[in-house]
């Protein structure tokens, strides 16, 4: 079997970067260790170059289990872009904290190798390997501040729930293999289609697989780890978990649901729809109560996952469902990209505030507009975007979901839209609360000066600009996502 090295070049580049980072860290001492960050960024840029090169190509390797198409390329660019942004917001944070920098960057890049494989994987085993490559480094990273009790708790919670759900998923996968005789996603779909009526056992295994991914995307009721883990982890790790790791979960979920289990969409779609409703409603209602900004962002990210699950609820089986499914996948993809830009940005601002001051409560943001206009402006843009106000990309992300829901209207789609509407309003309530505190409340006496640092300011500024530019010209993004259809490749 020949291996198409061009197709896996981005992953190879990342793997080499991870090893170089580890080696460089070993050779350097103390302050010089922070050089590993730009080294990792350089490797990421190279990987981005290889990925861009793959745009418009159709490649398959390792049999049919690894596929390169526009869908995969868009996802990979999303991951690599997030990696770059997370490296940008990590530098000072880790350099000052003197945590295990080499280890952190090695683990971070390794997790992204797993993510990068995810959208290309068309085989249950490869999907499983990818999800584990994302999860295991993430478990360690969550506990990186090992002298901090909260960090250890975060890691432990994350690990136990994570391992449990992965075990369930693996169990489901093995049963799917037993029932269909194949691990290839396309063949599984074919086999289910030929068999006609799906057996309850098969449907049960489908659910187990979905549960595994539900943990990764922090869908209710598998979300319990998320707030504690986000709050306890080092902040850049929380950003990684909230954005990139979640996007990877969605990539895997799209692959198994829309390709492998497409013939039984009438079973899982309503379940996903109901989970979407529960996830966004619960996430938003609990977010209303939060006093800690990171926990607020954590619950907001649970709610955002709920919005992104709506398109799954719209899925249909068969040929007549193809148009709807296509629109659904594009909506998810669009939302994920928009979400990555605005949510990493929000975490970036949180790091800027937290840096050297240790502040993280929402009331610490009072008077931010006077203390650091750039950060206040940026946070405002990110929060409004998360809520979906113009002129930000968040508006179009919601737009894409509504558009998918109305491609072919069903009563269930209307129910989903009503919940989306109500939840958008609830969400604005707590986003606006933070905005209000930043701009309208006076700063506390003796509030320490902020030193976001040059690097962080640049990245936050870039993400803010991206949020607004894509908000004015969403065509830049939608023209890419509309070309990226997973189904045509399936």
């Amino acid at each position: 079997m020949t291996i198409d090295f061009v197709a896996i070049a981005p992953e190879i580049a990342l793997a080499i970067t991870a090893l170089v980072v580890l080696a460089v860290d070993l050779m350097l001492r103390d302050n010089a260790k922070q050089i590993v960050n730009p080294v990792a960024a350089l490797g990421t840029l190279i990987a981005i170059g290889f990925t861009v090169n793959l745009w418009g190509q159709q490649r398959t390797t390792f049999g049919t289990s690894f596929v390169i198409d526009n869908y995969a390329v868009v996802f990979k660019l999303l991951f690599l872009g997030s990696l770059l942004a997370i490296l940008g917001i990590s530098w000072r944070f880790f350099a000052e904290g003197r945590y295990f920098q080499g280890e952190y960057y090695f683990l971070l890049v390794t997790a992204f190798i797993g993510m990068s494989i995810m959208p290309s994987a068309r085989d249950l085993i490869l999907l499983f390997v990818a999800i584990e490559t994302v999860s295991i480094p993430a478990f360690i990273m969550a506990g990186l501040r090992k002298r901090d009790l909260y960090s250890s708790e975060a890691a432990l919670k994350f690990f136990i729930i994570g391992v449990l759900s992965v075990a369930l998923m693996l169990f489901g996968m093995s049963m799917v293999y037993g029932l269909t005789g194949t691990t290839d996603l396309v063949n599984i779909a074919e086999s289910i289609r030929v068999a006609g009526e799906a057996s309850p056992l098969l449907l049960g295994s489908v659910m187990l697989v979905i549960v595994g991914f539900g943990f990764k995307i922090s869908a209710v009721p598998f979300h319990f780890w998320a707030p504690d883990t986000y709050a306890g982890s080092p902040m850049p790790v929380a950003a990684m978990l909230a954005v990139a790791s979640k996007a990877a979960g969605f990539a895997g979920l799209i692959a198994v649901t829309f390709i492998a289990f497409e013939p039984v969409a009438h079973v899982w779609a309503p379940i996903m729809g109901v989970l979407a409703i529960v996830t966004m409603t619960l996430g938003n209602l609990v977010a209303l109560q939060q006093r800690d900004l990171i926990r607020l962002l954590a619950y907001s990210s649970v709610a955002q996952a709920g919005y992104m699950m709506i398109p799954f609820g719209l899925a249909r089986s068969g040929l007549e469902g193809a148009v709807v499914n296509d629109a659904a996948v594009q909506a998810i993809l669009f939302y994920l990209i928009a979400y990555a830009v605005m949510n990493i940005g929000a975490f970036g601002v949180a790091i800027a505030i937290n840096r050297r001051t240790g502040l993280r409560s929402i009331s610490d943001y009072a008077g931010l507009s006077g203390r650091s206009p750039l950060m206040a402006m940026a946070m405002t843009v990110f929060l409004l975007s998360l809520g979906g106000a113009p002129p930000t990309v968040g508006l179009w992300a919601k737009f894409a979901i509504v558009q998918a829901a109305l491609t072919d209207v069903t009563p269930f789609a209307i129910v989903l839209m009503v919940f989306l509407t109500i939840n958008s309003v609830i969400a604005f309530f707590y986003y606006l609360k933070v905005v209000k505190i930043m701009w309208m409340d006076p700063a506390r006496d003796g509030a320490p000066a902020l030193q976001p640092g040059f690097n962080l300011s640049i990245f936050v500024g870039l993400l803010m600009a991206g949020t607004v530019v894509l908000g004015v010209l969403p065509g830049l993004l939608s023209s890419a996502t509309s070309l990226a259809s997973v189904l045509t490749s399936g």
Partner: protein
Amino acid sequence: MDPNTASWALVVALFMPLAGAAVLSVMPSAMDQVIRRTAVVITGIAFALVAWLTASFDYTRSGELQFTSDAMWIPAINARFELGIDGISLPLFFLTYLLTFLCAIYTTKHLPEPGKPKAFLALMMLLQTGMAGTFVAFDLVLFFVFWELVLVPMFFMIGMWGGPRRDYASVKFFLYTLFGSIFMLVAFLAIYFQAGATTWSIQELSAMAPGGLTFQTWAFLGIFLGFAIKVPMWPFHTWLPDAHTEAPTVGSVLLAGVLLKMGTYGFIRIALPILPDGAVRFAPLIGVLAVIGIIYGSLCCLAQTDVKRLIAFSSVGHMGFVMLGIAAMNEAGIQAALFGNIAHGVITGMLFFLAGSLHERYHTREIAVIGGGMLKKIPRYGVLLTFVAVASLGLPGLAGFWGEFTAMWAAISPGMGLADSYSGLYLALVIFAAIGTVLTAGYFLWLLQRVNLGNPSERWAAEPLDDVMRIEWVSWTPLLVLILALGIFPVLVFGVQDAAVTNLMSYLGG
């Protein structure tokens, strides 16, 4: 400037405030006065451009779109950057630029705590682009973006420069409006797909009038929620008294003068022509809610003790007349609604200016605390208040009269077959609306009696209070002239709109 080719003029006029906001935001905050003057210059140039555009408008073809631009904007969903202006848009567009310019002049001397003219004026100009864009966008997606763009600056205006209950008022304003506009977005998308998912153009969709009666009813309901909250119609009006009362003077002026008009404009421009069947079905309901609004607004006004809150509630009543005109579903009714829009914008905008100045002088807006005698204490101010209040209560010869009178006249014989099945209902509506005008006269005259007449109370007798200042004359005179001019020559607005309304009615099939 040739209205057929000079599409640049509209685009430049629309985005000049946005560019101005960007210019202001990079100026150092210490240059307080320079910033205020720059804002006057920028809004002044924008207004001059719009005045020039208004002068070059081809009034013989006011039913057609002029100064049009059309470019692909978001290819993936066929959304286009489609701008244009016709007889319906022109007066509102003009009013937007005039009011913002006057507000900028007013702000050179008056700005509530905590100051920060840079942020305030930049937000005001961002708001201006949003408001103006709503009136000239002819693509539903573009319209929606401009519509939503208004929310954020207004939220900050109320929340940062507002009165004591600003937190509550700003959040309530934002969430309420947002709630309606998401339903509106869903309805827009439903229309888009129903019409074959090829176009968002308001004109093309109007010509199509997609869907059957059931679809039109549901889609109208979605759009109705969005627009009715913005107008606001009873029972969706509860955000308005809070927002108006807490907003700074400039915010209230723009809220009353332009923002509320976006709702009625949306009904006329989008809801009626695209969903005529749904509109006919909803018309009686709109009429009933409108008249409840008229009566309810007037009764609330009678109970108010705060001048500004009283004016805010009077808006509910006046917008009720505008909606009654729309509910009539005939040409005269639409004309009345559009005229009422402009008249209310000018008069109530002016009233809020007066309320703001009142507060600056007396440091209170409580009628009982002011306690009368303004005509003696500050006579010019007292005269102005009388003049504008009388215009607002609909005295013939001033602007307020034509919108209300024509709306009631139109509602007696509603169009689109409504006269056959609902003639009794509409007659009752007109009777109650007429009672509303009496109540309106009642509360305004009572207000004048309580604050203007009599002798100044002991508390204020010795207090040195400024009469109308020069800056106030400058920013108010255009509005005062307009109130009189529109009252004597209503044809100024009716004439411009005429062809466009006829054109619109052809979509309705009436």
